[in-house]
């Protein structure tokens, strides 16, 4: 799933050839987990007044040939920028990396992040530093636009760099954009949904089910309205949509009707009964322990 506004960049991917060793490939795709993005945003909120942007280290995993980089977490790194120089606290970066390694040894340094969209000489210098950290793999750079400045939409962009010029210098680099996606597993997705809901409160199972069913009902209503409009000739029907609908509604509930429903219902009711029985027994048992023998 893409992050941020779609760009006009054409992402070229080298054709894998058997002659090149698999480790030498530059990443062609970046996936980011929400927790990394949230860490970056939190770091941005806690910056000092003088800081234009904040930077930090990205941790994650790579596929075997280095093709896809999965950014799984991020931590803040101290740095200072002035018109003359840029300084990154290397020692802090190392310490933090070691601390993170203790709880998650699988995640390694894959690159760095910065807020804002500004790619300048300093970015090239920092990129150069991180390339040494991630060698032999190339480092990736994620630019997160927080959208706090006027006229800018928030979004995430990922870059890899390549040296430029006849005599490559660390402060010169070309940043090549590569596609970046948001990635989450089931647990992370429900966490995200909890955060994105208008009233973030942990809800019960039934309440969640109800809201999901309401959404499905709303979708069915929408489809029904569309189909009616097409049938009445008010709208030009789209063949692709029609085929989609046919596919979706073709799956029937026949197997449920063939006695499976009753059996399943019995099982579920039995389970519910059993659960209630166990709870009642547990309650009685704990109360009985409080009864004195006298």
């Amino acid at each position, binding site marked *: 799933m*893409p*992050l*941020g506004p*779609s760009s006009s960049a054409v992402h070229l991917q080298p054709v894998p050839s058997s002659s090149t060793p698999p480790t030498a490939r530059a990443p062609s795709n970046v996936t980011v*987990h*929400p*927790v990394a*993005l949230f*860490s970056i945003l*939190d770091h*941005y*909120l*806690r910056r000092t007044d003088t800081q234009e942007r904040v930077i930090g280290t990205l941790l994650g995993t790579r596929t075997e040939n280095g093709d896809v980089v999965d950014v799984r977490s991020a931590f*803040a*790194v*101290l740095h200072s920028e002035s018109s003359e120089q840029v300084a990154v606290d290397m020692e802090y970066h190392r*310490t933090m990396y070691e*601390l993170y390694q203790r*709880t*998650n040894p699988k995640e390694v340094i894959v690159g760095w992040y910065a807020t804002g969209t500004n790619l300048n000489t300093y970015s090239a210098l920092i990129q150069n530093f991180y390339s040494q950290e991630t060698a032999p793999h190339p480092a990736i750079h994620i630019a997160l636009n927080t959208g*706090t400045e006027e006229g800018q939409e*928030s*979004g995430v962009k990922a870059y890899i760099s390549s040296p430029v010029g006849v005599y490559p210098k660390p402060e010169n680099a070309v940043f090549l954009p590569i596609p970046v996606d*948001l990635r989450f597993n*089931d*647990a*992370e*997705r*429900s*966490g995200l*949904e*909890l*955060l*994105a809901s208008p009233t*973030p409160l*942990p809800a*019960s199972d*039934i309440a*969640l*089910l109800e809201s*999901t*069913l*309401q959404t*499905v009902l709303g979708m069915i209503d929408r489809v029904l309205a569309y189909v009616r409009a097409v049938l009445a000739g008010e709208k030009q029907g789209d063949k*692709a*949509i029609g085929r*989609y609908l046919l596919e979706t509604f073709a799956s*029937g*509930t026949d197997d*449920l009707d063939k006695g499976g429903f009753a059996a399943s219902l019995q099982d579920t009711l039995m*389970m*519910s009964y*059993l*659960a209630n029985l*166990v*709870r009642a027994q*547990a309650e009685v048992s704990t*109360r009985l322990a*409080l009864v*004195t023998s006298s």
Partner: protein
Amino acid sequence: MAAALAASLPAPQAAPTPAAPTYEAIPASMSKVIDIEADIPLTAVQLDGLAVSKITKHSSDSHSTPVHGLLLGLDLDGILEVSNSFPLPHHASDEDDKTSKGAARYQASMLRSLKEVRADDSVVGFYQSTTMGAFFSQTLIDTQAIHQDKLRHGGIVVVHDISQTSKGNASFRAFRLTAAFLDAYKKRSFSSQSLIDRRMTYSSILEEVPLKIRTNPLLDAFLNTLKTPHSSALPGVHPAESVTSSLPPSFSALDLGNAALTRNLEHTIEALDSYRVEEGNLAYLSRQIAREKARADTYVAKRKEENLARVAQGLPPLPEEDVNRLFKLPPEPSRLESLLLLGQVDAYAKTLEGTSSSNLVKMYAAKADAGV
């Protein structure tokens, strides 16, 4: 049945009213809400979005083994604001001195590092992941009891249920130990008499603190951008792909699969089994105590009778003080373990109950002609 089910469901709302945006009012004076002495009791826990996502990630990374970490934040006017968290390395099973020292060092340097980037660095509690809602465990109680002494307000524990979360309902609950339990814990007395005195059941070990989730405005804005679908700029793409959103709605709550139900049932049975074993142990111990007591009593009675006879004959009575030395009464067994196990059983059964009732609803929803 179907009609009864329909009646038991909450009435459908006419239209989901859009939640009015609420603004966080800045109080005129902070003097009332800041308490240095920790006098204002905690009434609620507020979990920040960052902490939510970090806990979810940490818990889901290590699949079934329970994980724990520390919560960082501040309390303000009775609301404990948890703004950050970090995972703790997994304990080895044998807790030797070296690993615990290493853990302490890790914790200290992590806090120092976080302070350098201006993040909150005061520990307010810890979090623990669990499956199927059963979080009663000796370690949780022990850790929380240590925290209750050391931290301001005694600290809280946030329990995160992995099995619920992977089903689509992110579940977070906050707890702290009750005063009665803490009292008993400090005195290390979990005999039946002590439990009776304190009217202690498994439900009175922990008390739940209301928990709410907060997202800061920047995160909120970012999430909203993610949620908003934007149409593709390219012409002639498939309708399914032309409008994309980074966060499409998920319908995982509608999944009819009941693999989790089976596992839940297995867990319940396991917990019941271990409870039975524990009860057996307790019964054995109390029988032993009763036997020893009976033997001691008969000995004392016999000695008394003998003494009476001796006094009648005019002889000096034999001493009576060595009863306690002759018969060693075993100490009364601690009932804490059985209490916790009972709590486990109850929690598993509660989850089972919830899952089966929502399954019932799902089944009727899937049946086309259920007549609901």
